[in-house]
């Protein structure tokens, strides 16, 4: 509710400040989205309309993060798909793995940036800063992971995630050998591929829906 109220105020303030100004070169729809800070291209349900199990997802997210992230609000337009995404993420991410939380966030940011998914970069950028305690690392990886302060193992993992994202048809035994040399088990390699594949889905959905990054994420862990 707090989030809804603050969003409402931001909208009202923005509209008041903008008055009747329009932006040169912008389409009407783009102007409207800019002015209203729209969460998604599609309608977002209000909490009261949600099925009980989706309400629980909202309250769970609010408890964990202090707010309901826009990805949850946007996907709630299709409760079945929101639940399916959450379950898939849980299956691949909520398990034992030789890949650390920080390593996962690193390759998610690198591939999401290469896919141009603002929502995923901003939200996982926050998660990486929190996981590492390093306030600069997310910005470095977003711009170019090859120049970032990361270990050779982390770089090898991101190289592989980039290949899964952009040239999965060419993946071969050599790629496995490189990662094994960095201490990854074959199951760890599956984890990298599986999470990367799922976020290639997520990057595309966030871009199609044009989900607005929550302002809270920009500030976390700085």
């Amino acid at each position, binding site marked *: 509710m707090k989030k809804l109220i603050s969003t409402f105020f931001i909208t009202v303030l923005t509209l008041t400040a903008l008055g009747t100004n329009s932006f040169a070169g912008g389409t009407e729809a783009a102007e409207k989205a800019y002015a209203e800070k729209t969460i998604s*291209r*599609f309608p977002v349900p209000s909490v009261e309309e949600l099925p009980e199990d989706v309400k629980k997802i909202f309250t769970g997210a609010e408890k964990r993060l202090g707010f309901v992230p826009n990805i949850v609000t946007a996907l709630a337009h299709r409760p079945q798909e929101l639940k399916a995404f959450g379950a898939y993420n849980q299956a691949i991410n909520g398990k034992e793995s030789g890949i650390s939380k920080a390593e996962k966030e690193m390759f998610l940011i690198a591939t999401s940036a290469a*896919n141009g998914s603002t929502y995923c970069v901003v939200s996982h950028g926050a998660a990486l800063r929190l996981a590492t305690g390093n306030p600069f690392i997310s910005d470095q990886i977003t711009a170019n992971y090859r120049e970032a302060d990361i270990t050779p193992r982390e770089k090898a993992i991101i190289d592989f995630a980039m290949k*899964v994202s952009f040239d999965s*048809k060419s993946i071969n035994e050599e790629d496995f050998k490189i990662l094994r040399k960095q201490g990854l088990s074959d199951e760890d390699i*599956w984890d990298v591929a599986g999470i990367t594949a799922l976020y290639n889905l997520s990057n*595309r959905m966030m*871009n*199609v829906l044009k989900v607005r990054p929550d302002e809270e994420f920009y500030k976390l862990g700085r």
Partner: protein
Amino acid sequence: MSEMKKISRFPVPEYDELPEDVKQIWDGAKEHFGFVPNVVKALSHRPAELRAFLSYNAALTEKESGLTPADREMIIVAHSGHNGCAYCVASHGAALRMASGNPTLSDQVAVNYREADITPRQKAMIDFAMKVTDDSRSINEEDFETLRGHGLSDEDIWDVAGLTAFYNMSNRMMSFLAVRPDDEFYKMGR
């Protein structure tokens, strides 16, 4: 030679080792297709992911939609061909032949949908699916207008995007695992 016919880069479990619910998935697939497709066998190495994969697919496809089964299959075949996913092209190519009753359509769409015997509406949907695949960051209101002009509702457009995003995930997993297309799929609907 037997090495070349491996189902997956990863170990594939025997039927007897499977959890009960995964056994039921294998049984159901066998009843439906006459065989257990290699995608099911390969993902059974990780039952939780197999279940998540199938439920997500069901959430996207087992619902009312303005897209016909043939529309869906040609969207999948086109971008899977573009992504170089042999498994998805062979299996959904079979599904497209069955759904359309057209034995030549899948081969056309897998190579270059722009030259295929499809309607302007279908071409517009695949154009959009290709943009979701290769340049999702540039999607804008114009793309929506184009598809609305072909009679798609906004919910239909989400269906195209959701299906394409899901199969972009699946294409990558199948290529990563090097899942071998089942011989049966090549022959179906010819």
